[in-house]
């Protein structure tokens, strides 16, 4: 989710729920729950537009993602998946 929010945000004005749903391949209810958790923990920023909300990865989220990739790399070295 964080990765999608980061990679798809090319224009810098956030990513819509539809894109996140398509890339995440999950149901809307599960996505909503996950989004509220990520926004609550400060990893995602919710940008409230006129019609729809868009999501953008926060600085904390970017740092978390970098740390996650490092540990993923570490686990993969041992042949394991996170």
């Amino acid at each position, binding site marked *: 989710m964080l990765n999608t929010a980061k990679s798809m945000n090319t224009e810098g004005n956030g990513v819509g729920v539809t894109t996140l749903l398509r890339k995440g391949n999950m149901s809307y209810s599960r996505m909503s729950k996950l989004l509220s958790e990520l926004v609550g923990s400060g990893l995602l920023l919710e940008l409230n537009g006129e019609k729809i909300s868009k999501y953008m990865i926060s600085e904390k989220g970017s740092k978390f993602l970098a740390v996650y990739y490092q*540990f993923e790399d570490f686990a993969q070295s041992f*042949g394991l998946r996170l």
Partner: protein
Amino acid sequence: MRPTKVTTKTNPTQSYQSQNAAHFYTRNVFSILVLLALPVGMEVISDVLQFIGVFVSFSIAYVAYRGVRRIHSSSLLRLTAAFVFLGFGFAVEGFVGLSQVVPNLPFSTVTVVAGLLLETTGYFFLAFSHALDVMMSKRIAVSVLIFPIISFSSAQLVDILSILSFYFVLYGVVETVYSYARTRKPDTLLIAVGLAMISLGTFVQWLSLLYLNVDVLSLLQIIMKEIGLLILFTPVLNFTVGRVRLDGTV
């Protein structure tokens, strides 16, 4: 009458043979020197190697534990458990070895078995992590094919633990190689080589229990395990020299 001049041509085959002979003697002289030195410093060398194993194991466990704290990964938790057990196992074995150098340290056979048990548990967790990974990726058939079911009836506990360790690590090797085939990550292949060295070490350890009169086996198994463990240390080095420090900050 003029003496016949004998010309000697250098035969490439002879040259090759002489090189081989030189290599053979050098190697054998080295082996003899090692054998002569073994009774004197073998215990000390073994202990130093065991404690290097303790350091490497706890270092890997520490990095994995940081991962557990930061990203709450169950795979890293199992990796932490594996290397904590291995670290304690090596520590106990190291202290038991020290008791042979320092006579006042009281260690019994139970302690030796406890050390081996800890080590085997560590290898079990390593194999268990791979088994769970396999189950999650629905490769159960492969897991069942490779993971052996062996029953021991009258063998001694120490022998059983050694051979179990061998199977656990061997399973880890197979799964890591499989993982390398999937990810094509050089580090993964390196870890597979490291685990293979450890599995060979545990096999030699088992042999050393069978052939008690061959002193070299005991040292050889520790050297093989240490080389394997030092190879396993590579991801820790990559991690510490990478962008992310051990406290998880970028």
